[in-house]
């Protein structure tokens, strides 16, 4: 292959990768709309004192992926502290979400609103699950 062919091919691969990523975010947004939005709200702002915000939340954009995966899968029923405030509502468990679903919805919330953290891959979700 010459340089021109190489660049066409790499552009093609790049575009494929982009569209794949875009689709992941779109899927994540759809899951968010049906499962998460009612409590965490369309702007990811949550509800003061009740439902934790996701936009700008240190936990959400942080590196503890195992915790994020566990919260989505298992939910919780306790008062939690986050960035200086407390949130009292129970988080619903989502045991039926696949690893890909979790990767997609996490990628969506970590890159939406003011968040610009890394996207999450299926492999990261699987690794997080094995950590416990």
């Amino acid at each position, binding site marked *: 292959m010459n340089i021109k062919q190489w660049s066409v091919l790499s552009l093609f691969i790049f575009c494929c990768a982009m569209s794949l990523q875009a689709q992941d975010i779109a899927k994540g947004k759809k899951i968010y709309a049906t499962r998460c939005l*009612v409590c965490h*709200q369309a*702007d990811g702002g949550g509800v*003061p*004192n009740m439902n934790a915000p996701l936009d700008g939340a240190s936990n959400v954009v942080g590196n503890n992926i195992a915790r994020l995966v566990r919260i989505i899968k298992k939910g919780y*029923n306790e008062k939690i502290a986050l960035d200086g405030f407390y949130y*009292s509502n129970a988080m619903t468990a989502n045991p039926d979400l696949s690893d890909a679903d979790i990767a997609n919805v996490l990628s969506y919330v970590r890159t939406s609103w003011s968040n610009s953290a890394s996207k999450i891959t299926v492999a990261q979700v699987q690794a997080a699950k094995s950590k416990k």
Partner: protein
Amino acid sequence: MKTVKQILVIVLLAVAAQLQAQNNAGLKLPNGFKATLFADTIGSARHIAITQNGVIFAKLMYPNKAGKSIVRLEDANKDGVADKVTGWANYGGTGIFVSGKKLFATSDNDVYLYQLNENDEVVNPLTPKTIVKGLIARNQHASKSITLDGQNNVYVNIGAYSNACQEKDRSPGSKGMMPCPILDSAGGIWKFDGNKENQVYGDGIRYATGLRNVVGLDWNTTTNSLFVTQHGRDQLNSFYPKLYTDAQNAELPAETMYEIKEGDNAGWPYVYFDPYQKKKIVSPEYGGDGMKEGGENAINPTVFFPAHMAPNALLFYTGNQFPEKYKNGAFIAFHGSWNRAPLPQEGYFVAFVPFKNGKPNGEWEIFANGFSGLSGDEKVTNPRKAKARPCGLAQGPDGSLYVSDDSRGSIFKISYSK
């Protein structure tokens, strides 16, 4: 030159004050009513109470920047703005009530009693009497609201630590527990003796049950009975999408006001009140399908309102300042909804219901709006966008109405003049 500058500053300040007075601190009110921003950024002000001298006490959900969780506010020069603001205590909570020189305040577990002196200053800020202790507070609906009945009995809301008493709270398909074990110690109103110290559950009586979470309550001196406003259940569509659409969930169930007689049951968690069918409908967690009626032994609401608006305070107006139609009527502070999403939110205003001879006498209406700070008729789409969220109400000795807010930490004073 310096004097010119000084004069200019004074003029500008006067103009700013005038503008602020003209725009009623941003509130929209009926004709003849005016509002001032009585206090601002005092902390997460939940309920407020006022003495016969007009001194206001606000209970904060969290200690404020000064580390205080009960704030005392006084308007010594009577210009409608608090000029002396102090505070004490370091525990968060919602309930506060003044009875003569006694000041009751609550944490999420306890009810405390402070003594005020002739200037309405607290005598024992560090050593209150503990009137009730050890009440259940498990995350959800943990705040304790209180009122007294004129006979020194304290009525305390103990909210249910659950949405609908499912085996697994807020989980799709999880059944409702039968009977609901929460009702033994929460999900109702408990009555205690306001004179007796260190009372626990066994010393009080369960005055009313089947109330998911009451945040607003007031003793009505016309009927000599307790009235409460309940926060209705959430998420019918989230957990039962086959029975309820998003649009239906946004309007179901009604937020409700009840007149309570000792021993009453308002039906939670087994039923909810549907504002369209005007019936008590069996909850889906208990086999309901959105149509099936239930709650034969449960009371009906005295007034009902659109869903999810969160009625956080109730006050029967007994003053003489407002026009005749307001006399003995009910003001309700709606904190504002979240569970209407993805539809726009509702509430974030103070409503009024006219009463005659202790019964509602006409439709409810919005009395004071604009707390959210959004322009025109723009709806709150996400709760964090609302600048102020009405949470507490108090009637001043001159008949003015005070509204507290736990978001921006403000208190508004609403007055009427012909």
